[in-house]
């Protein structure tokens, strides 16, 4: 098996006296969806934030292609090929759908310190943006203002923006949050198609989606990893059932 | 510099710092708890000073003037909060800046209309006109010591209020979660009004007690405001502890800056550019800790 694209080593994050993420060591490989599940407050989003550089870890290491990226700023990590979508929709509401993606794609240019040529004349950037929109199925809504999109479409745009930066690893934080069954089904298909050429960290509460998609599964409770491995084995594990899956019916 | 001068500067610096703290604490409270940036805060300092001037002439006593002045200043503050400030809570800081800037213009012009543009002096109350001998050759004005004592007393009072009373608890809660406090049945509007009134009262009172020492002149409000901004930036928004530390620091830097001589490469930086020293200090803090010494990160 090829080396892990992203690997954490004893990753820990303290908020005051509380360990939101505690001694987490995980691996993420290309062509693989690695789902992370757990009850609310288990530290899943914190983990995603640590990997994307939105938060700095208290201790531990993060290796991207063998390079230790812990402590790097979010922009530097993004430039190294890590793309993140957010649990709470984090798009540019006043801009059009197209502009949202175009801005994301523009970030891959060597430099945006260009003051004369109109941004829209950078065809590569525009193409990349359109391609990302096509991948998620939003190209027909390109000229619509993002604020007027439906919730599901906004989640799609979140993903499109991340894709437009052509990352090698995708950190997806609850992409299905708040979606109806039809939208969810579409999103699951999209996520499945993303597996190719990407390593995917998928934080999710929707168990159907998780078991339909995950190649690897990690269960987190109170910031620590309870179990990690093949989904079918974890599903059958008594400890996990007791800690989480048993009460899954009531979970968000 | 000899020991006497050193001692005087230390005392002066601390006294100035404590006065600054009084004004700045009001600013940082309003900023930290209500999230309002009030440019007109300095104007209340000026209002206090001018009230001290006119009322002491009227009553013949600075003590009565102070009592009446504080009441008047608080009344003005409450009125302003009710009419105008309360409409700013949900607005961008930009609009708060603008509206309070407009208030500054109005205050300044009203002052000009009512009191004119001259510089005025206020007499030190007879009771405190003496000087205490500190060393064989040195005496220090009692009034200045009294000022420092009052500031310290008020600082302790504020600490007790905020940390030890129910009201203080509500104030602290209101700063972190406005909606929650409201849903607990506490009247957040009233709470904010009280905090604002407290801030105004502190500023006005500071102006009153400073009047005999610093005199009363146009532009005094703006001058103190900007220094208070520096105090808040260095100390950290919302931190009364930070404001105290920063204020004393600035007081000392300002005080020593005026008497020291510093020449670098043939250019005399001190005492000519002593006014700049506090900004240099602010720049240094910004480089090291942009959120201030006791401010919250991010």
């Amino acid at each position, binding site marked *: 098996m090829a080396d892990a694209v992203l690997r954490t080593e004893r990753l820990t994050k303290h908020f005051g006296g509380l360990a939101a993420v505690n001694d987490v060591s995980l691996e993420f490989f290309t062509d693989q969806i690695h789902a992370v599940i757990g009850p609310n407050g288990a530290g899943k989003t914190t983990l995603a934030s640590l990997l994307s550089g*939105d938060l700095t870890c208290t201790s531990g290491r993060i290796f991207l292609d063998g390079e230790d990226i812990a402590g790097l700023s*979010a*922009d530097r990590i*993004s430039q190294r090929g890590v793309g*993140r979508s957010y649990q709470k929709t984090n*798009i*540019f*509401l*006043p*801009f*059009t759908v197209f*502009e949202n993606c*175009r*801005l*994301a794609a523009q*970030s891959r240019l060597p430099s*945006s*310190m260009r*003051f*004369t*040529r*109109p*941004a*829209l004349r950078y065809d590569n950037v525009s193409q990349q943006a359109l391609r990302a929109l096509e991948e998620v199925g939003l190209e027909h809504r390109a*000229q619509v*203002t993002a604020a007027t999109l439906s919730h599901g479409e906004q989640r799609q745009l979140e993903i499109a*923006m991340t894709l437009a*930066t052509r990352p090698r690893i995708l950190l997806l934080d609850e992409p299905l949050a708040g979606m109806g069954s039809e939208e969810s089904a579409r999103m699951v298909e999209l996520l499945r198609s993303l597996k190719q050429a990407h390593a995917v960290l998928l934080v999710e509460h929707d168990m159907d989606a998780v078991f339909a998609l995950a190649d690897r599964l990690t269960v987190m409770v109170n910031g620590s990893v309870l179990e990690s491995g093949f989904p079918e084995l974890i599903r059958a594990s008594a400890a996990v059932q007791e800690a989480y899956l048993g009460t899954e019916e009531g979970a968000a | 510099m000899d020991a006497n001068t050193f001692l005087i500067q230390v005392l002066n610096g601390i006294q100035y710092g404590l006065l600054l703290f009084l004004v700045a604490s009001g600013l940082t409270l309003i*900023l930290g708890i209500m999230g309002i*940036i009030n440019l007109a805060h300095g104007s209340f300092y000026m209002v206090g000073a001018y009230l001290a001037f006119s009322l002491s002439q009227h009553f013949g006593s600075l003590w009565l003037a102070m009592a009446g002045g504080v009441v008047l200043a608080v009344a003005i503050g409450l009125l302003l909060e009710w009419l105008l400030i309360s409409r700013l809570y949900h607005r961008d*800081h*930009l*609009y708060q800046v*603008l*509206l309070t*800037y*407009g*208030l500054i*213009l*109005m205050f300044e*012009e009203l002052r*000009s*209309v009512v009191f004119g543009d001259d510089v005025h002096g206020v007499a030190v109350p007879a009771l405190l006109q003496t000087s205490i001998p500190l060393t064989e050759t040195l005496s220090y004005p009692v009034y200045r010591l009294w000022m420092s004592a009052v500031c310290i007393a008020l600082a302790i009072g504020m600490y007790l209020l905020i940390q030890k009373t129910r009201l203080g608890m509500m104030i602290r809660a209101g700063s972190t979660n406005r909606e929650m406090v409201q849903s607990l049945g506490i009247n957040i509007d009233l709470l904010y009004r009280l905090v604002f009134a407290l801030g105004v009262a502190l500023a006005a009172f500071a102006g009153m007690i400073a009047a005999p020492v610093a005199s009363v002149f146009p532009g005094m409000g703006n001058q103190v405001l*900007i220094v208070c*901004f*520096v105090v*808040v*930036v260095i100390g950290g*928004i919302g931190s009364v502890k930070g404001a105290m530390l920063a204020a004393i620091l600035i007081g000392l830097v300002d005080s020593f800056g005026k008497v020291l001589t510093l020449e670098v490469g043939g250019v005399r930086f001190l005492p*000519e*550019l002593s006014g*700049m020293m506090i*900004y240099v200090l*602010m*720049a240094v803090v*910004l*480089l090291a800790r*942009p*959120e*201030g010494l006791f401010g919250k990160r991010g």
Partner: protein
Amino acid sequence: MRKVRVATIVLLGCLLALALLPLVAEKYYIQLFTKMMLMAIFAMSLDLLVGYTGLVSLGHAAFFGLAGYTLAFAAPQYEAANLWLSLPLAMAGSGLLALVIGALVLRTSGIYFIMVTLAFAQMVFFVFHDTKIGGGADGIYVYAKPVATIAGWEPFTLENHTHFYFVVLVLLVLVYAMLRMLLASLFGRVIVGIRVNEQRMRSLGYRTFRYKLVCFVIAGALAGMAGYFAAAQFGFVSPDTLGWHQSGGVLMMVILGGMGTLNGAILGAFAMMLLELGFQGLPVVGGVNIGKHWQLLMGGFIVCAVLLLPHGLLGLGRLASGWRRRPGGAADG
């Protein structure tokens, strides 16, 4: 597209009116409008920061005033400076100051940013007020307007108020066009993105600090351009030119007109100055010289404007014609 056409027509109409003004107006009005156009340039430079990047600077006058002082220093005693040398010098000086101040203040954000920009501008004020560098509190005179001689040829003379007017008008158009181009460029899109959601921009891989700093410098240099000509026109610079009344006034212009639109900045500048004149010209009523205390009315106006006009004058216009307000930079594909 209809909206854009109407706006363009209005703009061109105004441009035409401005171009024709000197033919019909007296010297006083020509000079007045020259001043208004300079304030419009000043306001646009601040709009770039406030309206488009979301950086509320309360110290923008530092760059405006510094350029005036640079002109005064560049002019030999009682003689005129050369425009082609002193103007770039003044703009570079203001830009450099913006670079230094920006590198420090951009480490903060939100309320802190507002306060530190004010504080640093105040520091610059003190340098000129408390030292002998620029004549201290008394200020310094610019005895002769800069000459525009280049290789022996003098295309225009600033001593002639009509020439001065047209030079400023051309600059106004150039600056407007340049800013429009800037905002449509890659850089401009980043700037606008920063204002809408800076954290997302960073997570998309942009080094936002750099872009904000460059923007700060550009705004500073443009403010310097306005300040240079303002000093040339007025013939005098004092520390008040850098003071915070100046900073507050120009901020008001940007907000009043409608920030994040550029057109709003121009509108705001003209409106504020006309308002100031209007207030100053008020008669004596009941023994009280209202005109002398115009700042009271101005302050009251500002307070009312903030409470009643959330989007400035342009917002009012849009409301009237039923347009939805688009914040600066919404791209239309």
